[in-house]
């Protein structure tokens, strides 16, 4: 499962960034840098649709009532905002957590392997008040739910 995903991302990225692929082939870059599964393009995108396209291959998201995003109404400290995304959907492939008003909106992406259920919980940083969006990829489609969190002290920059 894991190697399959890594291989796919690697192929996609080397095709998208042809020069990187050529540089790697010529031995100019250390191979482990190129092979890392981490999706640089998605995690450095400043706009949400661009990040989603790079990460999930689509930015076409439908809101769903089957997803619960749990986060505090008011976060006193934006550096630590607990977020839980829970869904009863079958065949969850991945869950992404997005803080829409952050400088880099895509915070985390969890790829679910065999047997994993649609539940993740983590703590994120939020620069200012905004929606926390949970995007669930199930059956090849994207579903989302959001929750507004008011931030009194920002957690990004300083």
């Amino acid at each position, binding site marked *: *499962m*894991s190697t399959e*995903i890594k291989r796919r991302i690697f192929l996609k990225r080397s095709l998208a960034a042809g020069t990187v692929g050529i540089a790697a082939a010529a031995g100019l870059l250390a191979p482990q840098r190129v092979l*890392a*599964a*981490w*999706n640089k393009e998605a*995690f*450095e995108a400043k706009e949400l649709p661009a990040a989603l396209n790079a990460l999930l291959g689509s930015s076409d998201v439908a809101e769903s009532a089957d997803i619960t995003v749990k986060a505090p109404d008011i976060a006193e400290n934006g*550096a*630590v*905002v*607990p977020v*839980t995304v829970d869904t009863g959907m079958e065949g969850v492939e991945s869950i992404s957590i997005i*803080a829409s008003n*952050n*400088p*880099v909106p*895509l*915070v*985390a*992406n*969890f*790829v*679910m*392997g*065999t*047997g*994993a*259920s649609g*539940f*993740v*919980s*983590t*703590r*994120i*940083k939020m620069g200012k008040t905004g929606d926390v969006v949970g995007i669930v990829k199930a059956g090849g489609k994207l579903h989302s739910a959001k929750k507004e969190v008011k931030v009194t002290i920002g*957690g*990004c*920059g*300083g």
Partner: protein
Amino acid sequence: MAKSIKIRAKEKGGVTTVKALMTHPMETGARKDSKTGKKIPAHFIQEVVCKHKGNTVMTAEWSGGVSKNPYISFKFSGGAKGDEIELSWSDNKGGSDSMKSAIK
């Protein structure tokens, strides 16, 4: 960098809940040092992988937007008491760590 991870995995009714805490500064690269005014270089975990008996049950990819000393929790089915699970992370500076634990 030893012991930067704490894991707790508990099986109940066929579903295993995994909770893990990692020790990491999680610098975004956008923060400035208040004394020198220089940017603090980015240093954050990019990938977290959790395996159960060699099968990957969850892979997380993170940006610097995850809080310092990250906490993570997720669930999977198919685990049994006593099974070994392994969690590992790697960061953007090439650092990494891993930890094994048994499901309780």
